[in-house]
């Protein structure tokens, strides 16, 4: 049985223009990259487009990878930067949080299932209301299970900056959701 090639070997072949090796690399990591981006954008189509952009960058810049960090760290960094740029581009069209009154009216009229869905949607919007770097740090820590050291490398900040980003993200999220919690709607 042939041994599976490592990420670095596949990347070296990709850098030499081997599309089959690149396909293997994409299939191996597409789910992880796609889910990270999906958690950030909360939009399937956008997540798919951005994940494709990330892998396109892998193809384009494979030659520039110097092996100073693990391939997965490099891939995460590409994904994180793509997400941050996406938010920068989308800044001109902000997604407003729904008014509390509107939310209450909708939920009163609907059943428990809709209430759950609405709650999820509201939480998603609250997450989208966080500053991008705080949100990304929260996703990496809570959903991706990354350590502070890994987050620091991926986001190119210090460990104490990661601590601050996460603390502020949690503080801001609590502040955004506090009114609803008080009303008993969450």
């Amino acid at each position: 049985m042939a041994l599976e090639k490592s990420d670095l070997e596949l990347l070296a072949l990709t850098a030499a223009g081997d599309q089959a090796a690149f396909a293997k690399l994409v299939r191996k990591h597409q789910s992880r990259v796609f889910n990270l981006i999906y958690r950030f954008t909360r939009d399937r189509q956008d997540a798919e487009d951005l994940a494709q952009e990330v892998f396109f960058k892998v193809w384009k810049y494979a030659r520039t990878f110097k092996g100073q960090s693990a391939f997965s760290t490099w891939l995460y960094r590409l994904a994180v930067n793509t997400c941050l740029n996406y938010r920068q581009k989308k800044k001109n069209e902000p997604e407003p949080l729904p008014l509390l009154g509107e939310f209450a009216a909708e939920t009163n009229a609907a059943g428990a299932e809709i209430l759950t869905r609405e709650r999820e949607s509201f939480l998603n919007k609250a997450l989208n209301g966080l500053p991008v770097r705080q949100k990304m740090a929260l996703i990496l820590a809570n959903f991706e299970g990354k350590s502070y050291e890994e987050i620091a490398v991926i986001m190119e900040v210090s460990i104490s900056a990661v601590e601050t980003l996460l603390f502020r993200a949690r503080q801001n999220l609590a502040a955004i959701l506090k009114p609803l919690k008080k009303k008993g709607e969450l």
Partner: protein
Amino acid sequence: MKMRCKKAKKNISLTMDSRLESVGQEKLQAHLRSCLACQNWNRQQLWLREQIKVPEMIQPSPDFFAHIQNKINKTATRQRLFSFNPTMLRPILLRAAMLLILIFAAWGGFSLGDRLDAPAAETAAAVFSQTMNLNAYADMPAESFGAVYNRLLQGELQ
């Protein structure tokens, strides 16, 4: 020293990521026992963490890789048609530079050669005559200075 609420909240955040060491944990627990606001904040954070979880991994569409491949192919075609890659031009530029150096050297050689050519004999004589102002002696006898001197000595000339 008693822990302040801001520090306690920071430590709650660290605890959620298992980053707080045992001494800090003890201090935090002591603070939480006596501070209702921080207890609420702690509960709120634990609740939030549960709420914002995305339980299952979702998969991208089946044609995910095909889209990337299309993008790569499109870019490659565009690059072949329109892109300017300076490294491709390096050998041509080197040859052009060498040719220019040769042309310049040849032109310089010809131009300097013209300047350094020895002048013709008549030209040289005329220039010498002019330089020495030989016409100043035109009214003197057409003999050498030696002959004139001898004749002066012999008294033939006054």
